């Protein structure tokens, strides 16, 4: 029996004590003699360098982030690098200390090993602040409180001889320090944490602290690293080498094997990665633990077995029962093997659900699924994508239900619903099966709520990351969308950005008074461009009023979708319109403020008249500004 599959389950959506995740995995790996899935965290280098020879004057470090971001794991890497004992680490004590030698001269690391050149620095490890701090409502132990007070002091003392490494969820971090006795240093420290957290910074001048928020790491990058190690784990090879029979574990008919092989295909990986990357661009961060959970569930998931994850002993039963296809990877990716309540409580499935894959569709896709079999255009696709897929594609049940559905002989609603459920599964499958070449023809992204997501990734994000320029029509479309929101009219202009107000209320729905038109093409310092900000990993839409006067707008996927749809259709999808609309009005306010700043620098002679430009539209939707002059 496979120890590996048993062990792998620990990474899946099983009930567990979250605070002890890393410890549990380590211990169980040790016990079973299996190497855990380990890969280098994108921040690992930076964090290791904070304590290594790159630094002659180390400062305290706080590792924060959400549950499952790998805080404990990274702490352990530092502990190992500082030659801390493994036994100490294996203890349950959330607080450990270690001494390490750093140069007395705090500017450079000396060539010589001469002891007198070094000072011994005590490093306090609080590897789990929440496990160490008192429960809510309870009082601090005196010792602990003294220690944290000391920590706050060291932050502001340039000659401090002790440093700290603290790992904590951001909420717990703020909460723990709020409960400390109010001293000058504690107050300052609290403010520093809050600023660093909310404003996404790593350090502040004059504060001896490096602050790593692991929740800012790119989910897509974590995914790349995780899936590589996940698929390359020697456990899989061992399974294969046993040369199992068809219906054995990891035999030809074994759903675990089929899922594993599907996951190895570049197309599935690319689509999955795209979803995670889109999460990043919507400001949703997926922690490492959730990525491993996703992968594990994708391979082991089955709705009918214990805890909905297959054990080796389940495999023959599942095959015998003919329900292997219910373990299909495409459904497992969305947690469809889990109960509704369980699924909704898992972060990654909550995020993926927002794409509504399986529920969103287009006529073309549904025609393919329902009538594609005999269609001369779609037949090829039906054949390759549905018919030939013996594992997740059409089986006898599907054909029968389809026939019933089309012929409509039964009045049984339940049967129709059954077919509709199958369609959901098939659409999910299509999302991972439609090859790159057919993406456009079959409107792949209409399988998600974000119809422009593919374009966003390929023609905006990738183009900008390569340092190239986004195609003109795409920028024009965004500008048109902006103009429609800014004026509240179905304006068709896309060469200039129209800033308009209503006179009394900057958030008014309709704005008829034209304040300014900003040229999209570079002209006299004005321009509207899309650019990539490597520091934050964001796509920005920047409006320039002058070379030194510009306003940035974080062009998230959802905003891109919103603007594109307004530009193309004029109508707004109600589900996400409110939030984007508010954001865009706030953006307009900032633009008008920047415009006013530029005007304040112009030394115009005081005007004797009041000039207003009133905006209306021609029948074609073109702007028809009209100047009105008033003599006071």
């Amino acid at each position: 029996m496979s120890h590996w599959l048993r062990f792998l389950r620990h990474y899946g959506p099983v009930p567990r004590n979250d605070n002890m995740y890393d410890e549990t995995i380590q211990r169980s790996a040790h016990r079973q003699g299996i190497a855990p899935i380990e890969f280098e965290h994108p921040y690992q280098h930076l964090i290791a360098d904070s304590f290594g020879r790159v630094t002659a004057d180390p400062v305290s470090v706080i590792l924060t982030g959400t549950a499952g971001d790998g805080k404990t794991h990274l702490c352990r890497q530092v502990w190992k690098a500082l030659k801390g004992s493994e036994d100490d680490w294996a203890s349950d004590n959330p607080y450990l200390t270690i001494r390490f030698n750093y140069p007395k001269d705090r500017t450079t690391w000396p060539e010589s090993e001469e002891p007198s050149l070094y000072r011994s620095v005590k490093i306090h490890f609080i590897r789990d602040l929440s496990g160490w701090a008192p429960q809510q409502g309870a009082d601090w132990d005196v010792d602990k409180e003294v220690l944290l007070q000391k920590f706050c002091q060291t932050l502001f003392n340039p000659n401090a001889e002790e440093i700290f490494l603290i790992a904590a969820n951001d909420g717990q971090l703020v909460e723990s320090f709020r409960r400390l006795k109010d001293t000058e240093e504690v107050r300052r420290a609290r403010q520093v944490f809050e600023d660093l957290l909310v404003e996404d910074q790593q350090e502040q001048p004059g504060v001896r602290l490096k602050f790593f928020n692991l929740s800012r790491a790119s989910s897509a990058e974590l995914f790349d690293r995780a899936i590589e190690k996940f698929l390359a784990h020697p456990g899989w090879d061992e399974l294969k080498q046993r040369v199992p029979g068809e219906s054995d574990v990891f035999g030809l008919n074994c759903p675990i094997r089929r899922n594993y092989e599907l996951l190895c295909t570049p197309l599935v990986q690319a689509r999955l990665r795209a979803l995670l990357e889109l999460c990043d661009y919507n400001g949703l961060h997926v922690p490492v633990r959730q990525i491993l959970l996703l992968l594990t569930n994708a391979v082991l998931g089955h709705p009918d077995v214990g805890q909905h994850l297959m054990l080796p002993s389940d495999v023959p039963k599942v095959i015998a029962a003919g329900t292997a296809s219910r373990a299909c990877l495409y459904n497992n990716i969305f947690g469809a093997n889990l109960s509704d309540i369980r699924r909704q409580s898992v972060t990654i499935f909550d995020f993926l659900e927002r794409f509504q894959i399986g529920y969103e569709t287009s006529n073309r896709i549904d025609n393919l699924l329902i009538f594609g079999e005999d269609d001369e255009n779609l037949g090829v696709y039906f054949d390759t994508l549905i018919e030939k897929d013996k594992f997740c594609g059409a089986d006898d049940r599907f054909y029968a239900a389809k026939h019933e559905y089309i012929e409509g002989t039964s009045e049984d609603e339940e049967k129709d619903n059954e077919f509709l459920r199958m369609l959901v599964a098939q659409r999910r499958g299509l999302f991972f099966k439609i090859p790159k070449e057919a993406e456009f023809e079959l409107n792949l992204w209409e399988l998600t709520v974000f119809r422009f997501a593919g374009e966003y990734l390929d023609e905006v994000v990738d183009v900008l990351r390569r340092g190239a320029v986004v195609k003109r029509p795409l920028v024009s479309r965004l500008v048109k969308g902006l103009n429609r929101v800014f004026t509240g009219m179905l304006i068709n202009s896309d060469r200039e950005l129209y800033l308009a107000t209503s006179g009394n209320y900057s958030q008014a729905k309709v704005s008829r008074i034209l304040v300014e038109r900003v040229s999209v093409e570079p002209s006299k310092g004005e321009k509207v461009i899309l650019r990539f900000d490597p520091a934050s990993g964001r796509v920005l839409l920047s409006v320039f009023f002058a070379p030194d006067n510009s306003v940035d707008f974080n062009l998230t996927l959802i905003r891109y979708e919103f603007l594109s749809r307004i530009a193309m259709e004029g109508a707004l999808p109600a589900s996400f319109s409110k939030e984007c609309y508010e954001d865009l009005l706030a953006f307009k306010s900032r633009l008008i403020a920047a415009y006013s700043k530029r005007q304040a620098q112009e030394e115009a002679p005081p005007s004797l008249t009041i000039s207003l430009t009133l905006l209306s539209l021609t029948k074609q939707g073109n702007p028809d500004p009209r100047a009105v002059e008033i003599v006071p």
Partner: protein
Amino acid sequence: MWVDEAIWGHRLYDEQLPWFVFLEFLNVFTHEDDKGRAFDEQGKPNELKYRAAHRLYLRNILFNNPHLPEIRLSYPSDSNRWDEWMRRMKSAATGLNHPEFGFLKDHFHSFDDFCEVASLVRSTSLEVNSNKRWTSKFVFPYGRDCLYEDLDNNASTNDRRFFGRTGELLYLMLCRTHCKRELMAALKGRLAKADKTWNSVIRCLQPTSDEDMSNERANAFLPYANHPCFDDLADDWLATLRLNIPGFDVFPHLVNLAGLHLLKYQLSVSRQLLGLSTPLNLLCEMVAPKKTLVREVSCDLYQSNNLLPAQAVETFITNIEQSDDWQRAIAESGAFEKCRRILKEKARWGEDYDGSSDAGELISRLRQDAMKRHRQHVANIHRNYGREIGLVSKRGTVKLRYAPTDALLKTLLFANVEKRIELHQFLARLHFRYGLVFGDKEAEQVLSKDEFDKKAFQGNSRRLEQRLGSLGLLRRLSDGCAYVVNPHHAEV
């Protein structure tokens, strides 16, 4: 009769909705400020006297003038248009002795320009699409040249139909707060800083000599020399005025706050009179797709709060009945007349009483009359103001309850968060200052065990969090940590 007035002042008036309260307030404030005594009763409480402008040229042009589009269509040349329009206005304009609109030609190059501007100004006016009489429509208060008082149908005098003195009450409240000096500076600073363009445009729609002012307006009365509600209101206005909110966007928030605090004032004073020692609670539902326990409790609380003012009126009369004066009077000879005198003095009532000469009957008639009068207007403040400011709503159900709108949430956030605070601190603050309850911590404090359901209220605060997030006012970090952020925080 002087019962509602004795309890809450002269007077709270339900038909004067918060925007009109604010406009009336601005009239008073501007007048008093011109006299150099803004927010200063000069040691003589309740002797406020002021005049308000009428601006009937402006109002005839904007609100009593349906001719513009038709004239533009039917008359081709600019001079024909002007002539025809002025001819019509000469007879149609109301409330002006010698209507003469020729001054407009000095300000506009063409009749078309004039029409465009008039339509633009109208589009930002208040009550412009309601079916209120034209004399009860108001230009947005861009500046002092936009301020005037409500008038009757003949445009001759303020009939107290929509300017029912609640704005005067608001003014008096602010005169009696600890931070009136700071508030005056902030308010004047804000008004002075506002973009003058629009006020100038409005001035162009009035002749320079239009100085038609009302008679002296007097008799506003606010019974309390100070009250925590006044201070809370002033604190909120001050906090909001100090923010970096662009242009005139600050006004709707001031209006919401005025409405909220007037409502709270009415309920708090009622509770004081009733001797209730527990604080006021306004338990809010963040509208959920399905009926929840929170909605039920909120409906109940709304109902019981809604009855408080009427109970206060009852108690007020009962207090008279139980007073030593009254008890002595009914025991003496000539009881009826003595009692009648007491009621004349305490409730300004009894002159027209024609029932039997029995003190018991007399006071029970007062009780009837007072309740009847109370129900007509004062009793509706809680509901009408609540709905108008977005606190009270029927959304998703048939019963009224507290279910704040996005706009009100914004107002509350701006008044209570200087830069940013943690969400649960924000909730605690809203509870402490207004009795607003959203989350489980606060609900647990105010509800009995069988009414309280932790999950339901956690869901409620989660929905609040989502709303704030979608308004761009919340920064969620990770589980258990979210900051409420004020984007208009003024960097000092």
